[in-house]
Structures are given as structure tokens and as C-alpha cells.
């Protein structure tokens, strides 16, 4: 299955992925209208360390701890993609507690949101991948790194 992968060698730490993500999931047609003057709640975030940076979003694990841990049955796997049913989520943050990648965070209302590979919005392909200026985020099929 195609997933989002990052290459920290090419990540510039420009944070554009966060803005492209928030915009893609805003339902607005214009980025300024969607994001201007508002706090940002992206589904991808940049991790920055000593001279390294890279984007982190849901890894769509094959054996997802978040799905198994969800107390509301709000997280599910469909065709390999982990999605959240926001109407069921009660914002308990158990998924935040268990995700080893720190990939999950709630939205402005305390309800969980997560990377769903832009399958649910009109972007068509992951907005973070499309907008990355240096191909540090790619959307492709890979096996596990051994």
C-alpha cells in the first residue's frame, strides 16, 4: 500500500507541509481564508532536532496500537488506511498516549484528527507530498526497513 515517507536529508524545515495539510482539510478554497489569523491544527508536524528535521504524520501501521486502544471504537483501518470517525471520538487522548510516533493530535475542539492520506478531502493526493518543495515527503509503496 502507498504510504507517506519522509527523507530527513531533504527536509528543509520550512513547515509548508503543515500549512498545506491544514488548508487541504479546511474545506476552504483559498489558503488565506482557511488559515489567516487562526491557530494551526495540521495532521502532520515537523520534528526538529540537532541539525535534522523531518515531517511526521500517521504511519498507517500494519498493527496499529491506536486502533486497538481506542476506547470509543472511533479509529478503524480500512484498506490499510487508518481513519477516525470524529462523531464517535470523545477526545480521551488514549491514542495520543499509545502512538509511538507522536503522530496524532486533536483538533481545535479536542476531537482527534489524523492523516487520512487526503482521501477524504478534495486534494486527491496527500497535500503535504504535493506541496513539499524538496521531495522530502513522498507517497509510495515500500516494504519495511530491515
Amino acid at each position, binding site marked *: 500500500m502507498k504510504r507517506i515517507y519522509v527523507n530527513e536529508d531533504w527536509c528543509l524545515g520550512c513547515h509548508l507541509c503543515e500549512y498545506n495539510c491544514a488548508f487541504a482539510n479546511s474545506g476552504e478554497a483559498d489558503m488565506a481564508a482557511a488559515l489567516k489569523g487562526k491557530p494551526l491544527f495540521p495532521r502532520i508536524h515537523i520534528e526538529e532536532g540537532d541539525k*535534522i528535521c523531518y515531517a511526521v504524520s500517521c504511519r498507517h501501521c500494519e498493527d496499529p496500537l491506536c486502533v486497538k486502544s481506542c476506547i*470509543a471504537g472511533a479509529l478503524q483501518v480500512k484498506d490499510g488506511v487508518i481513519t477516525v470517525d470524529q462523531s464517535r471520538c470523545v477526545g480521551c487522548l488514549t491514542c495520543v*498516549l499509545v502512538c509511538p510516533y507522536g503522530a496524532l493530535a486533536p483538533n481545535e475542539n479536542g476531537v482527534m484528527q489524523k492523516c487520512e492520506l487526503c482521501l477524504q478531502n478534495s486534494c486527491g493526493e496527500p497535500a503535504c507530498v504535493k506541496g513539499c518543495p524538496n521531495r522530502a515527503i513522498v507517497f509510495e509503496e515500500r516494504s519495511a526497513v530491515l
Partner: protein
Amino acid sequence: MKQYVIIGNGTAAVSCVEGIRSIDEKTPITIVSEELYPAYCRPLISYYLEGKTDRNRMQYRPDDFYETNGCTVLYGKTAVHLSVRQKTVTLSDGQTLSYDALCVATGSTPFVPPIPGLETVAKKYTFLKLDDALALEQAVTPDSRVLIVGAGLIGLKCAEGLSTRAKSITVCDLADRVLSSILDNACAARMQTVLEQHGIRFLLSDTAARFDGNTAIMQSGEQIPFDVLVLAIGVRPNTALVRESGGKINRGILVDAQMRTSLPGVYAAGDCAEGMDISCGSSRVLAVLPNANLQGFCAGVNMAGGTKVFDNAIPMNAIGFFGLHALSAGSDRSDEPGGAVYEESDGQHLKRLFLKDDNLTGFMLIGDTARAGIYTSLIRRQIPLHTLDFDRLKQTPTTAAFSKETRKKAFGGAV
């Protein structure tokens, strides 16, 4: 005919079905359900009272779950006897089921101590099941004064759930702080403040000595009038079925890493089971939903002839009241030799990391809970701290503190 039997119909039972079906798609499964409902999200009963969810959304699995998975559910029945030799269970209605592999997922029962005068209380409830929530929904009116005995997770979630429904809510506990089994003094005080800001009154280091109708007479002598009483003192694992058949029991039914009990062909999972907690190195009942799910699945796979090991169980609690979240995992072993605590606190947020030797054994975060799972994974995977940049990690949970090889594995391929 070959069949699997699961006693219980909660989270562990459902994931046990999923575990079985990941290996064996055909063999029938019979589920014995004491409750009259398909599996629901039990931790949501307080959210139900709060109005944040409803019965429909509380379903743990889609309506056709049992049908699709070839399960027969016997509602309103319990298992009363287990014969390991004959591989049969006898149900409360006298029916006998034979099994090839059995999973005991019987959960737990509220502990109700014999407090004098309890029989004089008209409206008294426990708070563990959907039926409890439905009963409270009927019993509590805007004029109700609610007294909750027990300031543990169940008692406080009940208080939160009822906070807008009742006139007043009082919570008492013999411990000197709320959530005494999970939180230390500082964290507990922070949570208590938030609950108090929402009108919940606390009587700590004090509990009901006896009841007289609608009045609780406290150990301190204080008299608390109430209309509805909720007993949330604790729960006890339902171990009788296994115990009476000679299975090994501690607090819960003892299981190994494959969820096998000491009885051949009998597995146990969920709140009734007691397995190894790797964060403290001894066996414990880990009565939280994630563990029930993981244990149930593991039991199911092994029941169906597969091989699955669940050997990294730790306590994990996501507790939230009125928007303030406390996430904790693992154990505090800081008082043991080689133990240490890293602490950050600014009044709003609180962080405590419990260390022992070269490992993180537990943590507690209040307020800023972002990316807490990175800490949890350090405990579950027992990652030696010298292999990463812990000075950085202790300030912010970030995978950037891991080595390049670890990051490559985590982000460079399918996981």
C-alpha cells in the same frame, strides 16, 4: 463439532473473536454474554451521561459484527461451571457448551463493602456497566444531591458525567487525594482543582461509616444528606469460574504471555486476567481497554492455533476531566535503587518521568500531553536511554532524539 467459546462479551471478547478470525475463518464461536447488549465501549458510560455520545455510537463494532464473524451470542447468561477434563462449560440456564478452546473474558465486578445501613439507602448504584448508566440517567434529576463513595477513576468519571445533571455532587474517599492509585499528590491536587472548579465537592481522608436513609454519616462525624448514592470503591476481577476449576489465581486469573491460564485449553483476557507488567516486573491486573484489546486478540490467535505473544503490557491511563488531560503509563520505581525522577512543573503543566537505571519505567503528564506515546513506547520497548538523546527527549517527546538508524526504521519503510 469444533467450536470456540468465549465467556464474556466486552472488549477482550470482541478482539478475541478478531484474533481467532485472523487465523481460522470458519470454526464457529459461541459468546456467552451476561449483559443483554452487543459489545459496547464501556469506558464511554460516563460520556453517555455527559451527553457526548449515545447508545448507537457506543457500539464497539458494527451491527453485523457477530454475523460476519460467525459468532453465536447467548445473551443474558453466565458460565457457572467449567470442566477442563470434559472441555465443557455449564451456563446459568443449565445448558452445556463444549469447546476446543475457551477464553475467559469475564471482566470485573464492583466491590461493595458491607457498610452499615447500606440497605436503608433507596437509590444506590455502582458505575461499571451500561445498565448502571441507564439507571443513573433515570434516577438523577436536576434536584438530586449525589454522593459518590470513591475518588478513583470510576467515581470521578461518574462525577463528571453527572455534573450537569445533578444539583450537587460530593465525592468522598478514604485516601488523602483523588485518583490515589494513579496519581501522586501534586498531580492529584491539580486534577482535584479542576473538578472543584466544576462544582464537585470533595471529602478526602474520610468516607461513609454508615448510612441512614438519605444521610451518610462520615468517619469524621460529618453528616452528608444525599438523594443518590454511587459506590465506586473498586472492582474485583471475576475469577470464580477458573478458580473453582483449580486454575491459578492471584488477584486476577494468572496468564502467560500467550494468555494461557494454568488450565489446558483455557485462556483469559481483559479485566479478569492478571499478566506480567513489564514496567514493574511483576504480574498485575491491567484493567484498561487497550490491554483488554491486545490480550483478547493475542488469546484468540493462540486459541486458533497461531502463535502470538503479548509480552510488553504496561499500565496506560488517559484520564481527562473537563478538558484537563492527564496521561500516564508504566510504573514509578524511582524509590528503588537506581531510580530517579525528572520533573517539570509550571502550575499549568506537569511532567514527571520515572527512571530506573538506563530505562524509563513510567511517566505522568498533565496539561501538555502532545506526543506522549513516544514516552510510552520507550517503556513498552524498554529502550536503553543511552541509545538516544535523553536530555532532549525529557524536555519534549520527539523521535528526533532517536538514533538515525531507529528513525530510518520508523519512517523509512512500512511499520
